[in-house]
């Protein structure tokens, strides 16, 4: 439209910089939350335990997106594809090859890492809205690919696959749901700590320098292409592990569980939790699991509208998500101590 062939634009980075120290919770707070997570299942019903497990699994997936977007500044609407890949890898290994469920997770992670890394290569040339479209295409294609006829022998086609739910090992006297809860908790914890350390490492600093200013980063000697694809791979790998866990916990995989809606939900979880704030991922995951249910209970016919209004309320009150709430709380505590 404009006659000028080239316009010079100074543009603020799409994802704002998060101070490194503000990426985590304090040790004390973390320990209290961990203790609460360890104890709660004893007192609540199995269904609630299952929902808490799902919150952790979605939390892992949101965290993976957070590493990609909050860490390296790349945007993805295709996380559901990697989630599906992980879920199917786990399910197929368990059902067709009788692999132990715990062993399927690292394989699911590796397969998804590879897929993400390979996808990240051509996606390198794209950024912003174009990258969003490319990843979106991946998310749209995935359920169709899983339905393909010649894969039906393994994937079960449209019907999907039913997986055996594992029992607690060594004859531990706890139910399946509770066992899977603790199993997921351990993995979520490991991934959470690993991710925090990743972002604090040399690679993490490279991610963040790319997020804040790509040209400056490459001037400082950061291999931009390498780290961008790496971020894609790591994010996809972690999402794959979350997908594998979901296959084990839900005991069922089907192509239509992994549509673009899942990717959008994960994205919303990241925004609600606070982009770039890793603990927020789990808050965001709780939001995307519980708020649709709350909306449904308020009004059946208008559940979508209620959900939308609740979402608007959240982003109006705290545009930076749960991170903002945590920061405020921290400030208030600090003020109290001073007085």
């Amino acid at each position, binding site marked *: *439209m*404009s006659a*000028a*062939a*080239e*316009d*010079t*634009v*100074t*543009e603020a980075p*799409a*994802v*704002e910089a998060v101070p490194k120290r503000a990426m985590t919770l304090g040790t004390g707070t973390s320990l209290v939350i961990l203790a609460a997570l360890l104890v709660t299942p004893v007192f609540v019903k199995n269904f609630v335990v299952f929902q808490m497990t799902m919150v952790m699994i979605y939390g892992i997936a949101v965290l993976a997106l957070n590493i990609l*977007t909050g860490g390296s500044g790349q*945007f993805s609407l295709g996380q559901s594809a990697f989630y599906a890949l992980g879920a199917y890898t786990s399910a197929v290994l368990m059902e067709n090859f009788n692999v132990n469920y715990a062993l399927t997770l690292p394989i699911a992670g590796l397969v998804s890492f590879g897929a993400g890394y390979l996808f990240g290569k*051509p996606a390198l*040339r*794209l*950024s912003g*809205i*174009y990258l*969003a*479209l*490319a990843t*979106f*295409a991946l998310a*749209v*294609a995935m359920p*169709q*690919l899983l*339905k393909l006829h010649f894969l039906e022998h393994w994937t079960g086609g449209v019907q999907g696959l039913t997986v055996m739910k594992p029992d607690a090992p060594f004859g531990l006297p706890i139910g399946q749901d509770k066992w899977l809860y603790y199993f997921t908790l351990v993995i979520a914890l490991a991934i959470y700590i690993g991710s925090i350390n990743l972002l604090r490492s040399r690679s993490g600093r490279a991610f963040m320098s790319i997020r804040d*200013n790509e*040209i*400056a980063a490459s001037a400082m000697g950061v291999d931009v292409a390498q780290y961008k694809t790496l971020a894609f791979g790591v994010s996809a790998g972690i999402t794959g592990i979350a997908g594998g866990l979901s296959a084990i916990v839900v005991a069922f995989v089907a192509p239509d569980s992994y549509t673009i809606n899942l990717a*959008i939900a994960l*994205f*919303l979880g*990241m*925004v*609600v939790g606070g*982009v770039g704030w890793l603990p927020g991922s789990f808050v965001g995951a709780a939001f995307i699991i519980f708020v649709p249910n709350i909306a449904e209970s308020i009004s059946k*016919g*208008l*559940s*979508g*509208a*209620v*959900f*939308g*209004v609740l*979402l*608007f309320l959240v*982003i*109006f009150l705290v*545009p*930076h*998500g749960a991170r903002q709430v945590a920061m405020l709380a921290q400030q208030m505590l600090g003020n109290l101590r001073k007085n």
Partner: protein
Amino acid sequence: MELFTNQVLAGIATGAIYACMALAVVMIYQAIDHLNFAQGEMAMFSTFISWQLMQWGVPYWWSFILTLAISFAGGILIERLLFKPLAKAPVLTNVAGFIALFAIVNSVAGLIWDFTIKQYPTPFGSAPFLGSQLISTHQAGMIGVTLLMLVGLYLFFQFTRIGLAMRAAAALPESARLVGVNTSWMIALGWGMASAIGAVAGILIAPVVFLEPNMMGGVLVYGFAAAVLGGLSSPLGAVIGGFLVGVFENLAGTYIPGVGNELKLPIALALIITVLVFKPAGLFGRAIVKRV
């Protein structure tokens, strides 16, 4: 050869739908620099409004004009009420806002007009166009209206003061403010125009895909894809992108074995991404050079 010509013609016919939507997408992208995910739902709602007006006995063209006016006002209202307060919030928060708007509009439309499929009249008739079975007069009319809108938009942006002001506000907001452009209202105006163009798209599409709250789901994806393919900064590119996507989708469905209806969309998207890898700003978009 006849099969090929027929498929191309059919592709152009569906491409017109995508072109329409892509035009609305580019319009709002020009004004606010984001892709509005709720655009399709807003268009659907506008179409329902015009349908309701006709149910109440308003003649077609009156309801058409009224709907455009209502949509224009509605678009501005949404911007003022919901997105102006978010202007300072991070970009991704804005995107979440679009998703929330999507959910609200879809759900409210479902409640008011329920999810049954409704017939929608066409002013162009549905006889074969110039003796071709593949393009009906409605589809020809649709292509005509899309091209008219394109010319209108071009004239508006190129030759009116307000069009120039909108372009300035979108390209360099700070500088635009310095020379006295009210950028905040330019954004609202962009929302209004995008909403009205969306309404035209919805009204033209409805006779083909029928009227129901989810009618825009698929169309919007193609509209986005077409807009991105053509280059988000170029309305002409968006329209050409729309026709290209329509034609390619049809040809892929016909000539590549194993591509049924279900793989059409992934294949079309894959092609677009391939194009983007080689031309990252789209076919007709201008490359933006960033200052360090």
